[in-house]
C-alpha cells in the first residue's frame, strides 16, 4: 500500500521523529500512572472494608458470577493478543492485516461488554443492586454491610467498563482512519498509544477479577 516513499516527519516542536515517539510514549506512561492511582484508591478502600468485614465480604463475593467472568477474562486476553498483532502490523504498515485485527479487537471488547451486561442483568434479578430502589433483596450474611461489597463491585467493574467504552470508541476511530489510510504514520502512532491503553485495561481487569471474584473461593 505505501507506494510513495513517504518519510515520517515530526511535529514542529520536535527535532526528530524519534524524539516525538519517545515523548508520546512517555506521556502515555505518565497517564497510565494516574490511572493506576485512580484504581489503586478504590482497591485501597476495598481492602480496608474487606479487613473490617471479612466474612460478609467473602460470602457476598461467592454470589458473583465467576464462571461468566472467566469467559470474559479469556475474551479480554484474546483481545489483548489481537491488539498486539495490530501493533505488529502497524509497525510494518500492513493495512489489511491492521483492519482485520482491529476488527477482532473491537469484537472482543463488544463481547466483553455484552457478557458484562448479562451479568449486571442477573445481578438485578437476583436483587444485588443496592443503589436501585427495589434492586436489593440479598439474603446472605449481614445484608446491610454486604451492600458495601456490592457497591465496590459496581464501582470497580463500572469504572472498568467505562474505560472499555472509551477504548472501543478509540479503536473504531482507528479502524476508520486505517480504512482511509490518508496518514499511515499518524495511524501507526495512534495505534501504539491506544494499544498501551488497551493493555492497561486488560491488566486492571485481572486485578479486578482476582480481587472481587476469586480471592474468597
Amino acid at each position, binding site marked *: 500500500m505505501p507506494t510513495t516513499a513517504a518519510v515520517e516527519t515530526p511535529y514542529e*516542536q520536535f527535532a526528530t521523529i524519534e524524539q516525538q515517539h519517545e515523548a508520546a510514549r512517555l506521556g502515555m506512561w*505518565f497517564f497510565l500512572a494516574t490511572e493506576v492511582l485512580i484504581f489503586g484508591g478504590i482497591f485501597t478502600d476495598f481492602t480496608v472494608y474487606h479487613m473490617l468485614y471479612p466474612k460478609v465480604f467473602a460470602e457476598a463475593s461467592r454470589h458473583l458470577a465467576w464462571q461468566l467472568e472467566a469467559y470474559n477474562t479469556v475474551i479480554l486476553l484474546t483481545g489483548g493478543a489481537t491488539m498486539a498483532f495490530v501493533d505488529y502490523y502497524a509497525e510494518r504498515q500492513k493495512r489489511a492485516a491492521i483492519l482485520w485485527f482491529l476488527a477482532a479487537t473491537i469484537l472482543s471488547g463488544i463481547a466483553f461488554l455484552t457478557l458484562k451486561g448479562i451479568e449486571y442483568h442477573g445481578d438485578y434479578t437476583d436483587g444485588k443492586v443496592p443503589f436501585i430502589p427495589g434492586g436489593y433483596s440479598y439474603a446472605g450474611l449481614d445484608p446491610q454491610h454486604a451492600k458495601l461489597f456490592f457497591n465496590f463491585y459496581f464501582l470497580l467493574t463500572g469504572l472498568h467498563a467505562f474505560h472499555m467504552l472509551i477504548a472501543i470508541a478509540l479503536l473504531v476511530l482507528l479502524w476508520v482512519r486505517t480504512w482511509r489510510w490518508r496518514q499511515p504514520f499518524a495511524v501507526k502512532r495512534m495505534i501504539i498509544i491506544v494499544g498501551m491503553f488497551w493493555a492497561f485495561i486488560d491488566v486492571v481487569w485481572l486485578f479486578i477479577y482476582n480481587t472481587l471474584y476469586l480471592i474468597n473461593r
Partner: protein
Amino acid sequence: MSTIADSITDTLKESAGYSQDNYLRAGYGLRSWLLTVDHKRIAWLYLVSITGFFIIGAIAAALVRYDLLAPQGLLDASTYNRAFSLHGIAMVWFYLIPSIPATLGNFLLPIMIGAREVAFPRLNLFSWYLYTCGGIFVILTVILGGVDVGWTFYTPLSTLFSNSAVIVAATGVFIVGFSSILTGINFMVTIHKMRAPGMTWFKLPLFVWAMYATNLVMVLATPVLSLVLLLIALERLIGIGVFDPKLGGDPVLYQHLFWFYSHPAVYIMVLPGMGVASEIIPAFAHKKVFGYKFIAFSALAIAFFGFLVWGHHLFVTTQSVYASMLFSVMSFIVAVPSAIKVFNWTATLYKGSITYDAPMIYALSFVGLFTIGGLTGLFLATLSADIVLHATYFVIAHFHYIMVGGTVSAFLGGLHFWWPKMTGRMYPEIWARFAALVLFIGFNLTFFPQFLLGLAGMPRRYFSYPPDFQSLNVLSSAGAVVLGVGYLLPLAYLLWSLRYGKHATDNPWEAEGLEWQTTSPPPVHNFHQLPVIKET
C-alpha cells in the same frame, strides 16, 4: 481577557525599537489567543484567569474578615460558612495550584530548557479549557447559593448533612483536577524529552527542577482527589455508603484519601515558589547559587516525603497512635529538605553584592515568611502540641504564612522578575518596591495576630467568638485591608506598564539562564538562533 489582549496588542502595534518578530505579534484578534497553541500565550490565558479567581477568592476573604470584626459576627452563620468555603475553593484550586506552574511555568519551562515548545501544545491549550470549564462550575456554585463544606469537603458533612451545592462544586474541582494532571504530564514529558542538546539534568535551572518535582506530585496525587470527589458525588446521588457509618463505611477514610492528595498538594503550591526564589536570589545577589545540587535534590526529597505525611491532619481522629507517631516523624523529616533550601538561599546571599530590586524584595519576603510558616508547621507536627492547636487559628496562620506569605510573594516576585521577558516592558521600579513592602507589612499584620488567637484557643471556621478575642481580630481585619492594597497596586501598575512601561532589554537583570539569551519578548519558537549552553 480581551481588554488585556487588546491593550498588549495595541501597544505593540505602535511601538518600535525592540524585537518586532515576537510571539505577541503573531496574531492580534481574540481568536489568536483563544485558539493558540503557543505555550507563552497559554501562560497569558492562565494569568488572566487565575487573576479572576484570585479576585473572587479575595472578595470571599474580605467577607470573612468583615464578619470577624465583631464578636457576634456581622454576617449570619450560613453566609459565613459559604464565604470561607468559596475562599478556600477559589484560592486553593483555581489560584494557588495553577498559579506559578501554569503561568510562569508555561511561559518559561520550554525556554529555560532550550525547546521550541512544550511536548504536547494542543493538550496544553486543552488543559486551560478544562480549567475554565471547572471554573464555570465554581461560578455556578456561587449562583446556586454557594457551598458550605469548606475546601476540604469533609464527610459526613458533605455527604449526609449539607444542603448546599456540593455536587456542582465538587464537579468543578474534579474537572480542574484533570487540568492539572494533563499539565503535569505535559511538563514532565517536556523536561524529559525536549531539552536542547547539551542541556543535561544538572544544567537545568533550579526553577525547572522545582517544576519537575511539582509536576511529579500533580501527576501522582491528583487522581486520588478525583476519585474521592467521585465517591462523594456517588454518595450524595445514590448513597454508595463508602463513607456512611450506617452502611459500615468510615468517614475518616475520606480524610485519609483526601489528605493523600491534599498534603502533597501543599507542595504543589510551595515548590514552584521555591524554584522562583532559587532564580531570583542568585540574580540579585550577583552570585552563583550556593549548593545547586542540594537545592535540586531537596525539591525531589520534598516531593517524595510529601507523600508520607498526610496522617498529620488526622492526629485527633480515630487514627491509631502508632500511625500518628510515624506521621509525626515523617513530618519532621520533610522539614529537613525545606530547611536545606533556606540555608542555601541564605548562603547565596552571604558576601553577595545584593541589589534590592522589587523581585528581590519579594523573594526575601518569601524566604522569611516561608521560614516562619515552616517552623510553625513543626509545632503542628508535634503530637501533643497539635492536640491543643488543631483546628485553631494557629493552623490558619501557619498555612497562610506558607501559601500567601510564601507562594503569593514568590509568584509576584517571579512575575516582576520575568515581566520584561513576557511583555517587553519594564514595570515602574519605585512603585513595585513600595508595593512589595506594603504587601509584607499587610501580610504580617493580617496573619501574625492569628497565631496569637490560635494559641489563645480561638477555633477556626466559627462566625462568632468570645469578646476577649476582638482586638486581635480587628487588627487582623485591618491588616487585610493593607494586604488588599498590596495586591491592587501591582495589578494597577503592571497593567499600566503594558502600555507605558519602558522597553526592556533582552537581559535587564544581567541574569543567567537561556530565557535571557533570547529577545524580550521572545519569538514564536522562542529562539532566533540555537541557544548557547554554558559549560560549567
